[in-house]
């Protein structure tokens, strides 16, 4: 457990001592804030549905940017060798980095809590979907972090890691909106693969075990594959 906490702490600190954290947080707030509030007053409804609807899309670009350096940088500098020859398990390394990425995702989301607070002053806000939305955002974030981590473990080039991660996350986000491309027999499976629907369910405040299972499986598969990719030498 100790190595895991050590690695997570180190990675989290790395985010905040370099300018990456502040740039990513600013860009995220700018984009979501702008897209959300340009239409918010037109709908004249005191809810955050629009904000959460956009989240899978923004996350599929922001989170791979957060995770791209986690392994790629170590591979290109060679520091993975120093890290892995310390008494650590492969799983400690992957989990440590994953925990740091998820905590950082939470840090990105934290400033947006100002939105529901502001909205609740303007009208009667239903806090149920808001709480569900944030819970779903964390689950979605964790799943995307696992995918981003896998992409990062596959290459020593951070740009490739970012693009690969973003492509996978973006595909999962939009695949259930492109069902008309697929044959009927596959519809059920493909629809289940889409991250968007599962996230929307949770964001509505409906906690269904199928949706939870989806996010846990994606996270698990991503992390497991990342462990294998790193181990394979």
């Amino acid at each position, binding site marked *: 457990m100790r*190595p895991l906490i050590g690695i997570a702490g180190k990675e989290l600190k790395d985010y905040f001592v370099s300018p990456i954290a502040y740039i990513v947080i600013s860009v995220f707030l700018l984009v979501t804030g702008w897209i959300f509030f340009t239409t918010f007053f037109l709908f004249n409804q005191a809810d955050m549905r629009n904000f959460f609807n956009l989240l899978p899309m923004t996350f599929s670009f922001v989170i791979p940017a957060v995770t791209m350096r986690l392994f790629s940088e170590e591979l290109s500098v060679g520091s993975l060798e*120093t890290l892995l*020859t310390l008494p650590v398990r492969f799983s400690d390394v992957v989990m440590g980095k994953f925990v740091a990425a998820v905590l950082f995702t939470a840090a990105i989301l934290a400033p947006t809590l100002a939105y529901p607070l502001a909205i609740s002053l303007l009208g009667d806000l239903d806090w149920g979907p808001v709480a569900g939305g944030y819970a779903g955002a964390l689950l979605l974030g964790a799943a995307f972090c696992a995918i981003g981590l896998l992409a990062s473990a596959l290459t020593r080039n951070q740009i490739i890691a970012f693009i690969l991660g973003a492509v996978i996350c973006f595909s999962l986000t939009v695949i259930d909106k492109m069902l008309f491309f697929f044959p009927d027999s596959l519809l059920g499976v493909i629809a289940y693969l889409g991250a968007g629907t599962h996230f929307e369910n949770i964001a509505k405040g409906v906690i269904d075990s199928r949706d939870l299972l989806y996010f846990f499986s994606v996270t698990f598969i991503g992390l497991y594959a990342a462990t294998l990719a790193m181990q394979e030498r």
Partner: protein
Amino acid sequence: MIEVENLSKYYDGFCAVNRIDFSVQKGEIVGLLGPNGAGKTSTLRMLTGYLSPTSGNIRVKDYSIRDDALKIKHLMGYLPESAPLYRAMLVYDYLDFVARIRGLDEDKRKNRIRALSELCGLTEIMHFSIGELSRGLRQRVGLAHAMMSDPEILILDEPTSGLDPNQIVEIRDIIRRAAKEKTIILSTHILSEAEATCDRVIIIHRGKIVADDDTRTLSEISGLDQVVALALRHAPAEAAAERLRGIDGVLDVQETGKFDGETLELKVRCREGSDPREAIYKSVKETDWVLLELHQETQNLETIFRELTRED
């Protein structure tokens, strides 16, 4: 302490390490010597559990690298080639991070970092980020990293490569100070390095061990004959060779150079264990030739190394 059995490593069909066997006793300082690409780094990476062997096994104490890699890693400190450390981290933060992962307690951590920073001469640079440091300083941070948990075994991959002569001496001093009661394996392609620091030398060439012996024994019994080099002035080549061949203990005379038409350089191959220098001097004195140079060529590691790792 360490047993390497029939160890091989292939990269996509390329054989980097080819069935090597050796063992290292507790307290020994062993130098792994070989030209670039001989398989030194691959061997060390397998020893430290970073690469998994294609075949064969490594045992450290009672643990096998295949089943108990984690336990072995607890016993070892490893400095990879050119010390790839986290460049963005401060030296203190990095050492603290390593101490945490090594499982040192809060108060123990501070003491250990202080002790190591004195041993490795890091006290002045604790607040620098690693990326700003010169190579020599970074290497010292790497040594501190390797010695964090005071491990029984230290493995150092080319600890002095790319350093200037002063830095080399510094690093060597640190290793020597740390060497008490530790088993050390270090790789190098600098021969004087191995001669200066190691008790034993293992020479690797193209993934195979070509020599494995005490540094001293290796220098003495090399299977090569003794060679005396001499330079003569005013000596006709034929006559000089004739005269020298007549001396007891001389096996062969070879002309190696001729300058200004009058200075002759010769190499005299002698029987093992014999030292005919005195006889050569007396013999030359009888003539009117001038003896400019006379010395025994020492069979240091350099010659042995070149002999063993020659590309044919």
